[in-house]
């Protein structure tokens, strides 16, 4: 990436961070130590990506995913990763989550590990995939 690309990445990253934060705060409470619903990673690694780690499964809300996806309407090469990281499941659940992009939602949830009420959750425009997609 050139310096100009880096500047654009910085600007868009910040802009998107604020918007994602605004949307998430309507669905839950942030805590960076795992004491509430989620955390939005606030380090910019230089990628076209934001990462949300959810600590409560109720954040797997199709409405939330839809709204986050809407934020990417003008950003086709950006993605928002939702990583499931529920305290207490570290050694029993595999890593899983969603990758939200403008044109798709990669559904990497491994539903057999989830409580029954979350096993049937479905996301508009999704396809099955993994964290490597």
């Amino acid at each position: 990436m050139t310096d100009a690309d880096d500047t654009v990445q910085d600007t868009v990253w910040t802009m998107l961070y604020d918007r994602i934060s605004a949307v998430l705060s309507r669905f839950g409470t942030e805590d960076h130590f795992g004491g509430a619903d989620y955390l939005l990673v606030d380090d910019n690694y230089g990628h076209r990506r934001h990462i949300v780690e959810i600590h409560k499964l109720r954040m797997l809300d199709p409405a939330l995913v839809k709204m986050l996806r809407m934020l990417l309407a003008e950003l086709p090469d950006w993605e928002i990763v939702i990583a499931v990281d529920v305290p207490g499941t570290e050694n029993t659940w595999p890593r899983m989550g969603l990758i939200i992009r403008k044109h798709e939602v990669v559904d990497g949830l491994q539903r057999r590990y989830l409580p029954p009420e979350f096993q049937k959750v479905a996301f508009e425009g999704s396809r099955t995939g993994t964290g490597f997609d």
Partner: protein
Amino acid sequence: MAWSNSREELQRELRDVRRDLDDLKRALAARHAAHARDIEALRTKSDSALERVLRTFKRYAEQQAAALERKWDGQPHDELGRFDFGKKPKPELVSQPAAMRSRGHHYVPRQAYKDRRLPEDTRKVFEQATSGKLDDARTNMFDNSHRAYNKAVNEQFDRFLTKNNMTEEQMTPQQAREFLGDRDVSRSSNSEFQHAGVDARNLQRRPIPW
């Protein structure tokens, strides 16, 4: 005569250099203007996207609230229908200057020091202690646990204060550097921390800059 010719030649060369410089300045100005326009266009589009999201959210919240109103018969709850116990969600835009900070992985996460009563110079040390821009290693993007890393570093921070018998207010920039240097935070906490796209080995290759 020779001196006069040489002087004229020098002046001509100077004029050429000035002209080249002016051309360069104009080209740079044009490039910056185009760049600023691109960013502004993106911002405008992003604002529109957010407005659409907020409109959608409003409809969603109204539907949820209406459903819960029926279900819970008007008991007090927040705009999402959850019981709020007096705590309201923050609807305003968050304007944390996240990316204004140094780029990359922060060895001491902001959450571990932002609420501490540190002197400003000391805070700056943590603010600037980052890995720098990271390669996109494309590991499993769900391999995350910032909460575990944050917790581990936070506990190390407390232990450091206790060990050195000092308060947060007393921590000097030098001691902040010692904390970072003594315990290479990213390395010591790797067992608790795996980043999406940020391989722990990637962090280890980048030393703390002192």
